[in-house]
């Protein structure tokens, strides 16, 4: 029994053809519209390294690598996704009245195809059931308040699957209502057929016809709906996964690149014709805009965002929605080459733009390689360099960086004072340059860390020197807060200083110095081998150059974002510390920001919206006697957090904990 007969005197294929033309037409028109919007974006050349990109595509798209990190939701998604890949050809078969099956029979593939399609429907059906159970019964907190779109979509897909099984089953029943043939290659269809035997043939025919049209209406409906909802990720994830960022995580782009692959120097920048940062839609790159249509609204970015968790006006997922919604709302104007009165970054809101700590947890969590943070840091560039509109506190910080090359404004000539009495080499050639950074040079608590680290290195006979007065801020805070010109000025001066001192290897106790010097200075001609002190200390301990005994206290370790997640280096501090670590729920590459990154260290935070309190509480929850860390800013934030929470738990640097256990 099949639905392939005339309806109201019109052949079924004319009716289906008309619906197909309508729905496919609407789909294509909308997709074309979106493609035109994406093409309004600026250039971002990612059309390279094709073999690598193909491998990544198979791993991340087909293999659902990051999707299934969330076992339940991601697992259900993978089942639906793989199921649909297996079953999608069935649409062609049903749409042509079984012509595909006939063709496959000729080449002896029909049975194989049938079982594949059946497995596909079964996988998808299982996935849908799990997903519905999660949405309706479990209802995780983050889904509260979400639109009912998700449930409706799931039910619609379930409808497609059930009608397909019904049609499959009915095809095994003859016009008398008896079983014509039981096809073992379509087990689920056969199961459905067994329920249909001896049904009233006329009634069954009605069911079959209704199923077929419902099936086709739903599929056509999906085609119309896909570009408009979060379902756009069906298409949007393809460019997103294929053109994922190949630069190291967290590395920002210079203002202007020269043909030699280096950044154009500040003296030669064509400022008058350069758009600084992003404000309008077309200031963003095509890849930034395509993110909008790749978003699946899975909210994993929202779950891990410290700004969101502390109640600030930033939700990384909303930023991505903004990109998409803004495109839809202002599309006609944008495509006509006009500039809407509301810019895209107006839509983001300044509050959201300044709330980001650039911890990259959102980017790391996203299963489809959406790049949230660069949108915000690019917007900051516009706000600082074009509009001169930024949090008040930063003005003094910028002036201090310009004048004394440190955010606090201490006299630049006092930078080396922390080392008094240690008899360190200053500016002399050595194997390592100890790049101390601003916090390690000027902040009282962190000066102790610098001194401890220097003593440990002396003890282990590491040949190192410091720059002393000629060291400057690495510029991280200027760069993360949008003052790219100031960052570049500092970077250029530092590169010159380091090169003149003949520096090749750098050790630093600051993850931000580590990141900019090691991964970002290359664009300005500075190629140095940079290690974080936890890496060097782990090596020294392993080599037996530092003999450290076991601790008799318990310890938890807070991974700084720019080491644990952004550099994926979380073994070194644990090796350096040795012994057992009582891990926090969020640790290693899933660490949670202390709240200081992205220049947030220097911007006031509302008392009830402090990121550091969340993290300090997580550390306390481990019950450990003390907290270890490897970043001067995490040190400040967590120490403050402990005080505010009324805890006397000490926060100490890895070097300090090691120094205490040092065997004479």
């Amino acid at each position, binding site marked *: 029994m099949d639905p392939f007969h005339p309806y109201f005197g019109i052949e079924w294929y004319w009716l289906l053809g008309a619906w197909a033309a309508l729905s496919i037409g609407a789909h294509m028109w909308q997709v074309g519209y979106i493609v035109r919007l994406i093409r309004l974006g600026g250039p971002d050349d990612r059309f390279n390294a094709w073999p690598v990109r193909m491998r990544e595509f198979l791993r991340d798209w087909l293999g659902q690598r990051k999707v299934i990190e969330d076992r339940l939701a991601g697992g259900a998604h993978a089942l639906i996704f793989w199921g649909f890949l297996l079953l999608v050809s069935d649409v062609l078969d049903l749409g042509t009245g079984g012509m595909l099956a006939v063709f496959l029979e000729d080449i002896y593939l029909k049975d194989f195809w049938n079982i594949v399609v059946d497995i596909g429907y079964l996988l998808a059906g299982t996935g849908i059931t799990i997903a519905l159970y999660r949405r309706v019964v479990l209802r995780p907190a983050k889904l509260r308040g979400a639109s009912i779109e998700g449930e409706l979509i799931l039910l619609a897909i379930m409808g497609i699957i059930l009608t397909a099984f019904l049609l499959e089953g009915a095809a095994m029943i003859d016009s008398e209502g008896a079983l014509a043939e039981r096809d073992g290659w379509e087990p689920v269809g056969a199961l459905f057929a067994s329920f249909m035997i001896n049904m009233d043939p006329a009634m069954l025919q009605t069911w079959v016809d209704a199923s077929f049209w419902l099936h086709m209406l739903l599929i056509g409906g999906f085609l119309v709906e896909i570009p408009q909802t979060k379902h756009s990720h069906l298409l949007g994830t393809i460019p997103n996964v294929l053109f994922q960022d190949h630069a190291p995580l967290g590395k920002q782009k210079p203002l202007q690149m020269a043909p030699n692959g280096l950044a154009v120097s500040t003296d030669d920048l064509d*400022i008058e014709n350069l758009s600084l940062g992003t404000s309008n839609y077309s200031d963003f790159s095509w890849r930034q805009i395509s993110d909008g249509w790749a978003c699946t609204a899975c909210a994993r970015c929202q779950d891990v965002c410290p700004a969101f968790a502390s109640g600030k006006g930033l939700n990384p997922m909303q930023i991505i929605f903004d990109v998409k919604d803004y495109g839809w709302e202002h599309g006609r104007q944008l495509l006509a080459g006009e500039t809407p009165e509301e810019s895209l970054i107006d839509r983001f809101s300044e509050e959201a733009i300044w709330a980001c700590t650039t911890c990259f947890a959102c980017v790391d969590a996203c299963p489809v390689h959406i790049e949230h943070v660069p949108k915000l840091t690019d917007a900051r560039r516009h706000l600082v360099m*074009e*509009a001169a509109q930024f949090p008040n506190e930063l003005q003094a910080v*910028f002036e201090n960086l310009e*004048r*004394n090359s440190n955010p606090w404004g201490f006299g630049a000539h006092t930078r080396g004072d922390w080392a008094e009495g240690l008899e360190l080499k200053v500016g002399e050639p050595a194997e390592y340059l100890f790049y101390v950074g601003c916090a390690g040079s000027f902040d009282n608590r962190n000066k102790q860390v610098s001194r401890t680290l220097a003593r440990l290195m002396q003890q282990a006979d590491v040949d190192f020197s410091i720059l002393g007065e000629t060291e400057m801020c690495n510029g991280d805070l200027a760069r993360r807060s949008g003052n790219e010109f100031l960052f570049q000025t500092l970077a250029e001066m530092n590169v010159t200083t380091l090169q003149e001192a003949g520096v090749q290897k750098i050790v630093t106790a600051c993850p931000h110095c580590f990141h900019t010097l090691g991964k970002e200075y290359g664009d300005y001609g500075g190629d140095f081998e940079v290690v974080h002190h936890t890496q060097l200390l782990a090596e020294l301990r392993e080599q037996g150059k530092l003999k450290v005994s076991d601790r008799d206290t318990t310890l938890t370790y807070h991974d700084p974002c720019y080491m644990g997640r952004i550099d994926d280096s979380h073994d070194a501090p644990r090796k350096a510390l040795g012994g057992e670590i009582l891990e926090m729920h969020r640790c290693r590459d899933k660490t949670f920001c202390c709240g200081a990154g992205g220049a947030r260290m220097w911007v006031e935070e509302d008392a009830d919206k402090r990121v550091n309190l969340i993290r300090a509480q997580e550390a306390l929850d481990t019950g450990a006697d003390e907290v270890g860390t490897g970043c001067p800013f995490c040190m400040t934030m967590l120490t403050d957090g402990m005080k505010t929470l009324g805890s006397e738990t000490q926060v100490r640097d890895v070097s300090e904990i090691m120094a205490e256990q040092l065997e004479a």
Partner: protein
Amino acid sequence: MDIAVLIKIVPDSESRLEVRGGKLDESDFKYMVNPYDEFAVEQAVQFKEVAGGKVTLVALFSETSSIDTDLRKMLAIGADEVIVLRQSDYRGDRPAGNATVLAEALKPLQPDLVLCGVQGIDYYQCATGPMVAHQLGIPHIASVTQLELANDKLKAWRQVEGGLQVIETSMPALITCQKDLNKVRFPALKDIMFSKKKPFENRAVPAATGPDLTCAQASLPPARGGGEIIDGKTPAEKVTTLLSKLRTEAKVL
């Protein structure tokens, strides 16, 4: 309305400060625009935005040191041109002599208004501004915290002990600016870049003449003794230690 702003170039407050043999060692000084003069520039730019005209910055400084970056920043926030008077024996602690040189430079400009900071953060003499006004023969209002332009008159608010005084004056006049006058804007990068195209004149002026003061002796304030942080496991224990120290060591109880 053409406005002239007097700029003093002062040592950066974070410069290395050393006294050798009763004399200040200025060799390691870094210089910056006197912060009170920045308020004056901001005020001048705000007036220009309303009333039009030109803002000219006039600075008197030594022959050699470079101060271009900081003065360009003042151009970037909206001033139109800079004249730096270069004097071979310039000193910041010589208000009378400096006022004479500045007044001479101002005369050909014929400004409708002269603005400057209430004092320089190097020697805090609060003298140069009033002396310039005197030499130009124009009215002077000191230490202004709010300034309004009403047609061709100026209305100035100034804090006095326990009260507020509002003074009106015709123009031209000279106003010295106190710190609550305004918030100095941060220049956008493009403004900094464009400021490089604005006129920047270095003009040699003769060495100081006539009677003047000399600095006989400079010294640093006596170093303070370090405090003591009291150790103790509990607040009660710390208080006990503190009390006993106040009795036995400080002998104040």
